[in-house]
């Protein structure tokens, strides 16, 4: 039954129920009718809404009337039948899971705490409201930039007592080595604020994010997914699109480099980081290289990317790693998030890294109470939006006050510094502490007050959430994003809204990551859609840098090719062993061939099966199960799929969304994977068929969509090397000794099945399988994509297109090896090999290939993947004077 359960995960059809674009503008009579109809449905959608809404609600005003800017959305939603609404809501979250919008990509996106859900109902903000917000947020961005310029410069704000000095000096985000580095366009290229409505409906800032782009990739992904599922609703509301904003973000970054053809990299901590999805998604959307610290190297005070062609200069780094971890030489020793020497490179070129290193200090929560005075002093302006009421506990008077009023307070770290949406920790609620917790907290406040803030809870406004029984009000907060663009600082016309638990939260700490898109209603013309996915002429320039392949990525693609092929082969072996036998063949002989392959594949060293193994009485199903998921086997299908999924994740920014969707079936813990291990033997065949289908789709997507650049060469070489090895091994196992004619026929039949060459053989020879002809087809025929010669010829071709790093002119190791393998196989005489009854010549020839293949892999790895032979490491000295 588990098998059936997986069926619903086959890609579902796109919703087609798209109402005519101008439905609401059609004839008057029908409009009246529709209006009346939608009014009724409307009440259905919000029948029980008013009773449970918060003191301030986005949808309904104080009198309980729908606010006008929500009407178009409600109308459009109400036009969909109730079942269709629920379908859309489900489809939306299925797409989210397929896309893998989760905090930790190796985790099950459906697991508690890892879920990411997008509500069908967005948060809708009216035009006038948006203009006010925009103005306030831009003022704040300027203010944060001014503060950072001062803290990393003159420090007048400290000298004048506008910022308490120990607020800065207790914050490890303040990076003294970066003092004096002043980018001309300010420290911040990216900034985000978390806002909530208090009970009066006033917006309050509950957090600032000045370190990294703070999850803007999630907001973008939410929009993309929502538009796929409910693009008609979006269009009905005349909302602003995101693409123009990101185009100006690209242009703004390009201008900073002062180059026509800049190489811009997005620096991520790597796939194990919670926000990796957001980094990969953003890099992909903007067409930037996604790099990790080990991809970069400093030379001559400049930063270079390690590529297959050698070192190539990087013009700008979009920083998605913590500032402190960016340079093991001058910042946190032992943290290799960025290349050693990055700080020094920034001294030479202050706008090299965006946001500038050390910018996180401005998101210290303790700053909030001091901002109004700073704003007046620096700009002569009042702060347009206040922060949530907050006290910094580095101040002795605040400590005394909070200790006296602990029951009303929530205590939180001042320097938490997480940009992860929903990642903020809960505060400690004074009134809910036990006596001993209370004592510990008071102690902590006394000792480490500088690192804590106390907040009073403000209460939260509500916004509608979708449920199959109509809309329900839900407390919410929203993150809005700012970026430096070609037009100066701009606010992204959208955002990321999240549900919050009002009695605990004072920030965006969401235990249930129910997120929603944010739509800004415009009254003007919405410019036509120009997605960045299809590069326009202006952005094509930027996109081109994707052609550069980091050595690390080439390595990952090579192994992606290998694991995909290994999984494919293992499943083919399994399928041919399990499938009901055809009438015209001796079933016993075919089964014995299957046993030989299953037994050999399941051993770690792929040893040819012993006679006793082949005659063992265990049912073929249990041998198959052993190969799928045996606990002691290293090369089980289960293990190969784990590796495939993992390495695919490492190259995620190069996978298309479709490829990713297909791959999601192979995620450890996915339904199909669990079924594979747990299912009864008779269900295995059907599961294997599913798996082969998805793998074929995955490979096909690569084959059809991947540009034939160097990355492709490595992917394909990985696949070819694996296939060459698998084919050679199988022939070795099946024909290791003289066999009676009947047995040999059964084995030939099985081999042709596994190698997917049965049809080719039949149509070519119209004969029962004969060893010489089969060997010709599977070893020598360079036109058969399954033959050994085909694999070797292709590898040779790929190597010919790769850069030669051997200036002496001699042949590199890998080329020497492939030429020797090719020439040795071209010399095979299949007639003679087949006639030799001892099979020792065949064995010798195959063993030679199997010996050289790993050498070939090593040679390729050494040449291309280890441009620099090892990771940098740190040396210390220690002071040990005599007393």
């Amino acid at each position: 039954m588990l098998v059936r359960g997986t069926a619903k995960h086959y890609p579902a059809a796109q919703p087609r129920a798209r109402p005519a674009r101008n439905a609401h503008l059609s004839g008057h009579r029908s409009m009246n009718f529709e209006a009346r109809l939608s009014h009724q449905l409307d009440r259905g959608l919000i029948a029980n809404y008013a009773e449970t809404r918060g003191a301030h609600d986005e949808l309904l005003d104080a009198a309980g009337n729908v606010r006008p800017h929500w009407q178009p959305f409600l109308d459009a939603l109400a036009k969909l039948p109730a079942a269709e609404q629920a379908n859309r809501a489900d489809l939306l979250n299925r797409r989210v899971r397929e896309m893998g919008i989760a905090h930790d990509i190796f985790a099950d996106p459906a697991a508690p705490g890892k879920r990411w859900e997008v509500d069908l109902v967005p948060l809708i903000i009216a035009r006038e409201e948006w203009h006010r917000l925009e103005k306030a947020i831009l003022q704040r961005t300027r203010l944060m930039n001014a503060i950072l310029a001062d803290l990393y410069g003159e420090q007048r704000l400290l000298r004048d007592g506008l910022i308490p000095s120990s607020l800065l000096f207790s914050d490890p985000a303040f990076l003294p080595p970066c003092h004096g580095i002043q980018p001309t366009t300010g420290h911040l290229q990216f900034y985000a604020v978390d806002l909530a409505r208090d009970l009066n409906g006033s917006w309050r800032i509950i957090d600032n994010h000045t370190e990294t782009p703070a999850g803007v990739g999630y907001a973008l992904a939410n929009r993309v997914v929502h538009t796929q599922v409910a693009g008609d609703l979006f269009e009905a509301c005349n909302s602003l699109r995101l693409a123009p904003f990101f185009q100006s973000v690209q242009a703004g970054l390009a201008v900073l480099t002062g180059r026509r053809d800049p190489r811009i990299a997005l620096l991520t901590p790597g796939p194990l980081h919670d926000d990796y999805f957001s980094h990969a998604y953003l890099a992909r959307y903007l067409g930037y290289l996604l790099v990790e610290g080990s991809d970069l190297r400093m030379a001559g005070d400049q930063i270079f990317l390690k590529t297959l062609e050698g070192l190539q200069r990087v013009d700008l780094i979009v920083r998605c790693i913590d500032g402190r971890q960016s340079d093991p030489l001058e910042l946190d020793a032992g943290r290799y998030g960025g290349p050693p020497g990055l700080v020094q490179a920034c001294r030479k070129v202050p706008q090299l890294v965006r946001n500038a290193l050390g910018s996180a200090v401005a998101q210290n929560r303790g700053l909030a109470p001091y901002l109004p005075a700073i704003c007046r002093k620096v700009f002569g302006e009042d702060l347009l939006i206040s922060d949530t009421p907050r006290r910094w506990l580095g101040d002795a008077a605040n400590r005394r006050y909070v200790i006296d009023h602990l029951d009303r307070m929530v205590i939180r770290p001042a320097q938490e510094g997480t940009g992860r949406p929903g990642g903020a920790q809960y505060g400690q609620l004074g009134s809910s502490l036990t006596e001993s917790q209370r004592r510990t907290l008071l102690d902590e406040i006394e000792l480490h007050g500088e690192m804590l803030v106390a907040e009073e809870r403000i209460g939260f406004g509500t916004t509608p959430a979708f449920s199959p029984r109509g809309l329900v009000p839900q407390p919410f907060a929203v993150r809005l994003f700012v970026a430096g663009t070609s037009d100066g600082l701009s606010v992204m016309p959208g955002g990321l809204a999240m549900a919050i638990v009002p009695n605990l939260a004072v920030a965006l700490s969401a235990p249930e990551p129910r997120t929603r898109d944010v739509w800004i209603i415009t009254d003007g013309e919405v410019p036509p859609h120009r997605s960045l996915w299809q590069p326009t002429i202006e952005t094509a320039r930027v996109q081109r840098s994707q052609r550069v392949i980091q050595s690390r990525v080439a390595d990952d693609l090579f192994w992606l090719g290998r694991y995909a092929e290994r999984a494919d082969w293992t499943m083919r072996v399994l399928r041919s062993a399990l499938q009901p036998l055809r009438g015209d063949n001796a079933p016993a002989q075919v089964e014995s061939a299957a046993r030989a392959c299953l037994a050999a594949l399941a051993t770690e060293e792929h040893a040819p099966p012993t006679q006793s193994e082949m005659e063992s009485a265990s049912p073929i199903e249990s041998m198959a199960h052993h190969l799928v998921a045996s606990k002691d086997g290293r090369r089980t299908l289960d293990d190969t799929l784990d590796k495939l999924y993992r390495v695919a994740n490492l190259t995620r920014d190069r996978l298309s969304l479709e490829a990713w969707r297909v791959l999601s079936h192979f995620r450890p813990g996915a339904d199909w994977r669990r079924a594979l291990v747990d299912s009864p033997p008779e269900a295995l065949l059907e599961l294997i068929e599913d798996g082969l289908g998805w793998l074929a789709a995955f490979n096909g997507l690569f084959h059809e969509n991947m540009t034939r650049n160097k990355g492709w060469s490595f992917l394909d070489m990985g696949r070819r090397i694996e296939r060459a090895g698998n084919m050679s091994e199988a022939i070795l196992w099946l024909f290791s000794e003289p066999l009676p004619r009947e047995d040999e026929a059964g084995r030939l039949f099985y081999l042709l099945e596994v190698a997917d060459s049965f049809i080719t053989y039949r149509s070519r020879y119209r004969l029962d399988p004969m060893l010489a002809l089969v060997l010709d087809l599977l070893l020598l025929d360079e036109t058969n994509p399954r033959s050994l010669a085909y694999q070797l010829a292709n590898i040779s071709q790929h190597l010919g297109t790769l850069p030669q790093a051997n200036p002496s002119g001699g042949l590199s190791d890998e080329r020497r090896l492939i030429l020797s393998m090719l020439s040795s196989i071209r010399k095979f005489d299949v007639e003679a090999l087949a006639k030799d009854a001892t099979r020792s010549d065949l064995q010798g020839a195959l063993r030679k290939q199997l010996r050289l293949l790993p050498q070939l892999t090593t040679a390729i790895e050494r040449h291309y993947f280890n441009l620099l032979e090892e990771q940098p490491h740190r040396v210390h000295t220690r002071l040990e004077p005599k007393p």
Partner: protein
Amino acid sequence: MMYDVSHRTVYRYSTPVVQSQHIVHMSPRPVDRQRIRGHVLSIEPSPTIRTERIDYFGNRVVLFDIEQEHRELIVHARSTIGVTAPGAIDFSATTPWDEVAHRISSPRAGTDIEVARYACASRHTRTTHDIAAYARKSFPAGRPVLQGAWDLVERIYDDFTFDPTATDISTPVTQVLAQRRGVCQDFSHLALACLRSLRLSARYVSGYILTRPPVGTPRLAGADASHAWISVWSPEYGWVDFDPTNGLTPKDEHITIAYARDYDDVSPIGGILLGGNEHSVHVGVDVIPQG
């Protein structure tokens, strides 16, 4: 007293180093009571890039990058420095510590950043409940700040055993407190953590100390060593040095190279290597009084 100081560090690597980047704090900064007559820092092999700068704390920093293969690196600092002993300091005439702490931490116009900078815990001087409790014994309410500091330094000298085998570069100060053993860096970090737990300003000083061979034996070349101690701020005397490892206040036998929040800010030499595999390091320090 005038000194010739030589600080020579030799690294040898088991396989060639492809690239090495280093940051060096071996050039003496100007401080009160100290005159720098001469200084040379030589590096072999010759760096591809060598940069000198003054860091946020006012120390002289040399950054260098060697982009040619090498199996050996020699960094040699030679300085001629004159040191004068401080005048008399009356610890009991200083402001009560609690008033000093209040003055340092309350924001007001005219805040002295030079002082405020050193009042907060840093990576090696994290404060804990136990550290604060240890510190408080030397600082009953109202005690003059330098009297408290001197009491603390004496207690550390009495309570702790010098033991180079007990700690390494990553030993946290809480463990030093628990096991009551360590080296000069550990004792300095502990004293700083104690003082900063009270929100007093105190800084880490990196430098050299004159050592005397046992009577009747000749001075061995390269037998001296780098040293670390602390400096505490009071409104009356500004910064006053204390040496918890030797239980004394430095006169004219301590030579300052750099000071900052803790060891991390001013470690004499730190580097990142590409290649090199295993390395051996030999450090030779000579502090030779002139005439």
